[in-house]
């Protein structure tokens, strides 16, 4: 091939690769543009004060009211419950994987735990609705409603275990050997090395893992839509039906709400709330993770 042709080909390929990289930027701009457009239209009808501080959510039925707090509350009951369940298990798994497990156990356990994150969330929803509620929760708490926040929180907790265990395991293994050996030289036991040297040294990694898991739990949709119910309410009782931000969006899109109506605009207002919340959590998590990497790598 002549030199000129070669150069033209190189340039074309360079441009094509650059265009592919830009697709992700365009996606982000698209998300922001789409959300802003309809959210602004929504706030033309409903005051932000009513939306953010109102305690009653009933946008589809008369008398309408647009207070998003019940959905936020439902989201945090589910996500908080999921973290309560997933943090101890995820952390313990990570300590076991990085400090105790022999290599062969580790090579089996780690991929198996990651299978939990690969199961479609609708499967977890089915499991919560047809197994966790009738066979686990109801025998323990007979007053549990068919749709309840607790079953959703439990299955979401299971699906975020790998996020926590995998990231914490990476963080623990990035702690320099010398720190551990110094502690062993002072006759510390393995328990003391794990809990007083490794975990504190990797604390920012642990925090980042928990934040990423939280963002996942908040954005989780199908399991919550199936198991948690469709009753927006301000309650901390996990045994009753609630509705989350994501659950509401699913409910609207399953019905036929025509475009342009205020009912349709609510999904964008709720979507913006969801997007900004998870974005903020993800940004903080990445910053923390970045600091941690700078410290040890």
């Amino acid at each position, binding site marked *: 091939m002549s030199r000129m042709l070669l150069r033209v080909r190189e340039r074309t390929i360079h441009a094509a690769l650059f265009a592919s990289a830009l697709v992700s930027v365009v996606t982000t701009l698209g998300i922001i543009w789409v959300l802003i457009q309809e959210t602004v239209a929504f706030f033309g009808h409903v005051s932000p004060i009513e939306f953010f501080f109102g305690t009653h959510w009933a946008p589809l039925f008369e008398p309408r009211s647009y207070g998003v707090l019940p959905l936020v509350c439902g989201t945090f009951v589910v996500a908080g419950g999921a973290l309560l369940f997933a943090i101890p298990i995820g952390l313990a798994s990570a300590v076991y994987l990085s400090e105790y497990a022999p290599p062969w156990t580790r090579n089996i356990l780690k991929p198996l735990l990651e299978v939990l994150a690969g199961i479609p969330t609708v499967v977890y929803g089915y499991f919560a609705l047809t197994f966790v509620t009738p066979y686990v929760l109801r025998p323990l708490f007979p007053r549990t409603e068919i749709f309840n926040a607790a079953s959703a929180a439990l299955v979401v907790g299971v699906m975020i275990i790998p996020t926590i265990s995998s990231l914490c395991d990476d963080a623990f293994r990035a702690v320099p050997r010398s720190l551990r050996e110094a502690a062993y030289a002072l006759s510390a036991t393995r328990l003391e090395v794990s809990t007083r040297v490794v975990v504190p040294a990797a604390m920012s990694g642990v925090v980042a893992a928990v934040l990423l898991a939280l963002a996942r739990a908040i954005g989780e949709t199908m399991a919550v839509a199936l198991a948690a119910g469709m009753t927006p309410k301000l309650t901390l009782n996990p045994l009753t039906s609630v509705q989350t931000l994501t659950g509401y*969006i699913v409910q609207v899109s399953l019905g036929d709400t025509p475009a342009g109506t205020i009912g349709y605009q609510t999904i964008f207002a709720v979507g913006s709330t969801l997007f900004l919340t998870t974005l903020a959590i993800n940004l903080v998590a990445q910053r923390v993770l970045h600091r941690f990497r700078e410290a040890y790598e």
Partner: protein
Amino acid sequence: MIGASELFVPRIERRRRLGRLFAIGCGVLSLIGLAVLGILIVRVLWEGASWVTADFLTSFPSVLSPESAGIKSALWGSIWLIAIVVLLAVPIGVAAAVYLEEYAPQNRLSRFIHLNINNLAGVPSIVYGILGLTVFVRWCRFDRSVLAGALTLSLLVLPVIIIASREALLAVPKSFRLAAYALGATKWQTVRSHVLPAALPGIMTGIILAVSRAIGEAAPLIMIGALTYVAFVPQGPLDAFTALPIQIYSWSDQPQPEFHHLAAAGIIVLLGILFPMNAIAIGVRAWHQRKKAW
């Protein structure tokens, strides 16, 4: 003089015992996740295994008689979706990763693209659904078609492919590139014939994981209005469709227990596709780590 209470008392025996308890505790807790996985699989098999028949795979869903309902339309819908996602997301994702790792100058724009991709990976899937509903269904007028669904899913899995491919490219030693340049190869020749082949197993793992994510996603498809009751197979990319996870959702949401058996049977088919894919991805990674020439 130092009082006895201020002296360091090692109490080695007690600390060792505590340590053993802690080790056992951690081991047991790390098995809880696996136990739930086991219960889930047994439960699904128990409920649905006898419903997975040849008729189940080749019949359309039915509202009236669950006994004769099947997943033909959902299975075909999923196949259509995945075919388009693979055609679109894989080339764009790998190309973006190649640009970022091999071509991009170290400037603000590149750093911004990096940060942006990491953030996109954390955006909830339902938000992609909102994007797809507005852009593909309404602006582009693709309506509630397979194409609109596949485009939405492609955007959703793009960050997964890019991040995995970047890691694979990053792991290829610098000496590979220098050797090619020393022989007079151009940048693209170097990338195509030396860097990409060496990174291929890592990229493949990422692609498989991305595709299995797309197979299991329901939320963005429900958002763009994929229908839950479809008694036909899509004939082209602009036809309406349903997909396996949506069919499972709609059966799970019915109160009658027969439909829960159908949902379980659908889950068996879905996991029957996903688990082997996961196993292959893990296998490729493990094989690659052992065979690695550098």
